[in-house]
């Protein structure tokens, strides 16, 4: 059975000026989580807040989330004192398809967190991974490495431009799968880039959520209808996603 866990925040560090990285004690979530899944975390607000799982440590029974401060709930969680116990539901939703041998991972903004987990998992199973990270500017860069292709909109670090500029520098292989998490315009651009190269591409959606487990239907994404006469259907971001194959939901 799934359950709601009470977990201790073991460690909090600031990755950038407005982004915190929490290490949370929960052996069950660390054991079960797959890249692309998220957790729904309580704070003093009425509803929980969803965050992508950024990393797991099965041995120590911990997982990580990265929190960019955009409002009250994220602000509170980003400054939470170490040792605080929080309620966490998870791991939730569907993760990426990890069946291929070769991957291109692309992140923008807070997409850096779920993509980081995908990178770690794929590398640990010895797969070929090319990582492309897009940031607004140098001040936003986090969870990076010299092995990655980094682009910045401002051009003050790495390649100047969007992550498409980074993608265009890669020698493509057959059956490579692209996984992309970031703002919708970026996922659109990466999705159509992948389509043009005939590569399978997965994206991850964000919607405002309440339950996070599929029972309230507030978090829907639009999908092309299978039935005729209906303009579109709605699928739940939390339960049917957040990861979808590019083209499955209307961006």
């Amino acid at each position: 059975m799934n359950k709601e866990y009470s977990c201790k925040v073991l460690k909090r560090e600031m990755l950038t000026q407005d982004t915190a990285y929490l290490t949370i004690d929960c052996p069950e979530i660390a054991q079960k989580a797959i890249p692309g899944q998220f957790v729904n975390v309580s704070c003093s607000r009425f509803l929980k807040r969803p965050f992508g799982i950024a990393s797991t440590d099965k041995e120590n029974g911990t997982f990580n989330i990265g929190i960019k401060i955009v409002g009250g709930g994220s602000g509170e969680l980003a400054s939470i004192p170490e040792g605080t116990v929080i309620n966490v539901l998870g791991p939730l939703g569907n993760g990426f398809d990890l069946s291929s041998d070769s991957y291109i991972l692309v992140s923008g903004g807070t997409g850096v967190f779920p993509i980081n987990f995908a990178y770690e998992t794929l590398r640990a199973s010895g797969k070929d991974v090319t990582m492309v990270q897009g940031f607004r500017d140098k001040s936003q860069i986090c969870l990076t490495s010299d092995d990655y292709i980094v682009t910045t909109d401002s051009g003050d670090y790495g390649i100047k431009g969007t992550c498409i500029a980074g993608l265009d520098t890669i020698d493509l292989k057959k059956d490579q799968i692209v996984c992309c998490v970031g703002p919708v315009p970026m996922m659109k651009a990466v999705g159509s880039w992948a389509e043009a190269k005939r590569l399978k591409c997965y994206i991850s959606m964000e919607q405002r959520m309440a339950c996070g487990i599929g029972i309230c239907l507030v978090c829907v994404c639009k999908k092309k209808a299978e039935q005729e006469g209906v303009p579109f259907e709605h699928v739940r971001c939390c339960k049917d996603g957040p990861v979808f194959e590019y083209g499955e939901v209307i961006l």
Partner: protein
Amino acid sequence: MTRLGVKVGSVSLKSPLILASGTCNFGHELSEYYDLSILGGLSSKGLTIKPRAGNEGVRVAETASGMLNSVGLQNPGVDYFIEHDLDYMRSLNTGVIVNVAGHSFDDYMAMIEKLDPHKDKIDALEINLSCPNVKAGCMSIGTDPAQIREIVSAMRSRTDLPLWIKLTPNVTDIKSMALAAQNAGADAVVLINTLLGMVIDIKTRRPVLRNNTGGYSGPAVKPIAIRMVAECSKVLDIPIIGCGGVMDYKDVLEFMIAGASAVEIGTASLIHPTCPVDITRDLTDYCKSNNIDLSDLTGTLELW
């Protein structure tokens, strides 16, 4: 029957706790969290004759102690439900309540005709005359005693299934709505559905909800629901199912004292999916330590 057992008219439930419509879907997801057979029942997502995609854009807005939703009755349609979800709900070994919505008199009658042949699998029909999130029907019917009477008596003549009429709190005098339902042959009333509300984003000066307004639920609405249950309990002969803002066992007791025979849990499941497990445990302890059957509490309120 254990000490938690209650009766809602002819319907016996093993516990007063029923999961409220729209906050448990058809039970599949929550059964990954606990054994739903501890519940008195489960009320399906509001169903309509045709499938509905629901409203577009942002559908949830948070408040200090509640939330607004504007889902807009997204559902797969009654035919799909009968084929794919009804047997599953029956297999959960708990009361099966089917929530029925519509836009017109004809819609509701067509729904009864679809569901009545499956009466062996259904414990009660919960007639939603109160959804605030769709343009026509539903809530506008539930704010007019004459329309309530017309629709409930027509349903009464078409089915023997228990009819629980779910009313909207967006009225001046809830008693006249409840009496209209009772006099037309309803077996129970469910009080309350959500309150119509609005939340504004001060940066954009636009409503947060793409539908502008939404249905307000959660602990913030509980005092309104309790007041309505207490008022109706004084004038009705049929049972009341209380609903609105239940978060813990004390809220359940409060509803029962006010006059409810059973109590629905809605928004609380979105916050803590397993809260009915805790509430069941706490109610059991309460009955034990006070040496009472829970149903003895119903309507024991003494007004000043």
